[in-house]
């Protein structure tokens, strides 16, 4: 056995995030850990990696009892962890990040050349393509993850823990990652990964462990299980992934985007000539591999990035000349793609986060004075309605599990009575039970006559939700597909840059 966790219990106050959990991980296997948001997956891995100290229980690595007093002890025992939120230093180069904390030195000075050389060697040996001299701030999340993995490898890890590694990856990047991981186990290493994507769990893992409410539910070979089994063990009920039934209700145009161009941070055109409309009571999906202009589109529509040309008119107001506050005033609600950066203030309470943006309006404030009582009671309502797993409105957001943080953002934005909802990655890092309820909520917004624009790198999600799907490639909108009877094959071709006309069949409108 590579790793054995025996009766691990971890409490935060009176609350047990892990309750007598025992798991054995065999050497040379890919072991998936699944469970709802807040089930205690991250906590368990943090205990294993020495970031948290268990209240009870023991850890055995390769048959030997170990005390993981700190991450250094875990690293020495051959463990490596890639965290849910990356910990790279943006201004440093790839090689500097990889060797941070274990710099190669000559005559007391850091030997950059040797570090670059070693990084290149590692990257070739393990098939993780990176350019060692590049600055991390210029790289995509997919590459950042490769760097995190290289960091772990450089420290000689044989057991690698990945916390939701694919949450931020495109399908293409995920596939590459899994190929790499397969290579690792083929070479005798062991991989433990946490995921909310059951398809990939079914596809790549050898064994699955299910946690629920901090307790161990089952550990079984993947081959014996179906996806439905996993769902039932995780959530305790069946969850439907079918396309949502709907009536055509599209009303008047709420958002009209015309010939919109924008540049990315490197001043290169990232959004090219996008034109589309979103009507009241319809959901328009934007599909595409991450990094094809979706971020820039969202940023322009929310006033966070200037457009270089073109217009985006929301109910008669051109957004390209307005500040973010004015745009919100005009009727936009925005669920940002990166919740930790633009979605929440991690250090503040749930009520404070839910209050943000309406602090000047009644009933939250009267005569310029905030009414925290109202804020707290409203927050309590929203916590119930959106099933946010927290102890109460005063909980610090940073303490919540990843999926529950996402729900805080959704709760705030969906209760804003905005006519236009821009939702970037609605269910990133959210468990399938919660995915279902978030999708329900989006459908409810649609039924209430809101215009909804959903950007997602998960095509399945758009196929369930969208009335129309626009496919983006290299900053352009390659074509439009009707949500009913959409052909994922064809959308895939368009995502790869094949023109709509050249793909099989005409536009389905």
């Amino acid at each position, binding site marked *: 056995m590579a790793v054995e966790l025996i009766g691990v219990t971890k409490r935060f106050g009176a609350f047990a995030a892990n309750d007598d959990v025992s798991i054995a991980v065999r050497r040379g296997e890919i072991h998936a850990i699944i469970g709802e948001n807040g089930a205690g997956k991250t906590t368990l891995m943090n205990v294993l990696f020495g970031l948290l100290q268990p209240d009870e229980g023991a850890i055995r690595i390769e048959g030997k009892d170990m005390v993981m007093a*700190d*991450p250094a002890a875990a690293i020495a025992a051959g463990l490596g962890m890639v965290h849910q939120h990356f910990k790279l*230093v943006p201004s440093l180069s790839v090689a500097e990040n990889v060797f941070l904390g274990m*710099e190669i030195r000559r005559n007391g000075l*850091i030997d*950059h050349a040797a570090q670059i050389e070693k990084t290149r060697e590692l990257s070739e040996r393990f098939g993780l393509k990176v350019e060692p001299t590049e600055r991390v701030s210029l790289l995509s999340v997919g590459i950042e993850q490769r760097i995190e993995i290289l960091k772990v490898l450089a420290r000689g890890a044989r057991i690698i823990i990945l916390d939701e590694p694919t949450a931020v990856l495109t399908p293409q990047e995920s596939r590459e990652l899994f190929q790499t991981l397969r290579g690792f186990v083929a070479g005798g290493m062991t991989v433990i990964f946490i995921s909310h994507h059951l398809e990939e769990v079914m596809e790549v893992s050898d064994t699955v462990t299910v946690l629920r409410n901090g307790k161990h539910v089952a550990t079984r070979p993947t081959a014996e299980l179906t996806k439905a089994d996993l769902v039932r063990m995780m959530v305790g009920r069946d969850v439907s992934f079918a396309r949502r039934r709907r009536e055509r209700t599209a009303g008047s145009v709420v958002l009209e985007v015309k010939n919109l*161009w924008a540049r990315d941070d490197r001043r290169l055109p990232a959004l090219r000539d996008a034109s589309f409309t979103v009507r009241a009571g319809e959901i328009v999906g934007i599909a595409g591999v991450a990094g094809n202009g979706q971020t820039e589109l969202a940023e322009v529509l929310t006033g966070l990035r200037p457009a270089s040309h073109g217009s985006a008119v929301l109910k008669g107001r051109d957004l*390209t000349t307005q500040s973010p506050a004015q745009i919100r005033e005009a009727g936009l609600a925005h669920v940002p793609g990166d919740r930790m950066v633009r979605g929440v203030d991690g250090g503040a309470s749930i009520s404070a986060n839910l209050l943000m943006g309406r602090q000047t309006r009644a009933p939250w404030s009267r005569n310029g004075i905030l009414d925290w009582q109202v804020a707290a009671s409203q927050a309590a309502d929203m916590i119930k309605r959106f099933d946010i797993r927290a102890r109460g409105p005063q909980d610090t957001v940073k303490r919540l599990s990843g999926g529950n943080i996402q729900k805080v953002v959704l709760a705030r934005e969906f209760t804003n009575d905005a006519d236009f909802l821009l939702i970037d990655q609605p269910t990133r890092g959210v468990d399938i039970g919660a995915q279902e309820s978030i999708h329900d909520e989006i459908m409810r917004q649609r039924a209430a006559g809101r215009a909804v624009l959903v950007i997602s790198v998960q095509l399945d999600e758009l196929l369930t939700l969208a009335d129309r799907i626009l496919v983006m490639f290299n900053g352009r909108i390659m074509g439009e597909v009707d949500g009913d009877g959409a052909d994922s094959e064809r959308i895939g071709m368009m995502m790869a840059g094949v023109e709509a006309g050249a793909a099989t069949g005409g536009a389905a409108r």
Partner: protein
Amino acid sequence: MEVLDKLLNVALLVATLRTTAPILLVGLGGSFTTKAGIFNIGLEGQMLVGAFFAVLGSIWSGSAFVGVLCGVAAALVFALVFALLVVTFRANEVVVGLALNILAGGMTISLMKAVFGTRGSIVGHGIVGLPKVQIPWARELLGSWAPLVSGYTPLVYVAFFAVPLLVLFYRRTRLGLYIRVVGEKPEAAEALGISIARIRYVASLLCGLLAGLAGAHLSLGYITMFTENMSSGRGFMAVAILIFSNGDPLRVLGGCLLFGFADAFSLRLQTFGFPSYLILAVPYAVALVALFALSYRSRPRIIRETLESMRKLLSVEPGRADADNTPST
């Protein structure tokens, strides 16, 4: 033409280097804390106690070198208190910095009264100033340009040599790297087992070291005396330079040279009979305006965005006309 000649010559350059030195020293000190993610507004106070105790030490021991050591030690004590309050007890760094500045001002005045029974300044009493360093071959090689490299007090050389050393320090040493990481991404440091608190202490103390040298240079360098509040805002100027330069040694040097030049130039102007209070304000004004202009591109986003949207509003039509070539450039 004659006026210009009088204003701009080798002597002016020499004066510039000389006046740059103290602010450069304290600015480089602040670079450590800035890089480590601490906003250190206490530079002024550290410099002031450095200056005062340098004078004391020099009088007591009769040696300028011991004086410098005393000044550095005093500044280090202040830096240690600063780090203790800010890092260990997590007090607000601006409040602590300001409090220590006020303490430094008051303390030097009352000690002056207690020890020397005077107010205002300490002159004489056998203060030994720092010697001037004469570089032997300078005269032969450079002729009339010699004063540019030779004949300064030692701390001027220390200040300018510290610049490349700091560049090397941040790029090539482990401590320098960790200081940067702690300032930029503390969670990364923590995850790798680098103690954030320890690095911040070290950065604070390194800062105190250089601030103490800066103070000693003020009181033992060219004028051997101590006057009440003798740092006269140089520490604050350094803070401004640090904000604009983000603590990068080369950019700190640039900012300090600018200030030093303005300072030297205004002293020059004094000989032309301008009112002295106006002249004393010149270096500060010049440096601030220039820094603002230099950091044009990193101005607060809000100003930039306002300008950008104004430009967009004004040029809606032309923008439309060259629509096709704009994005492809």
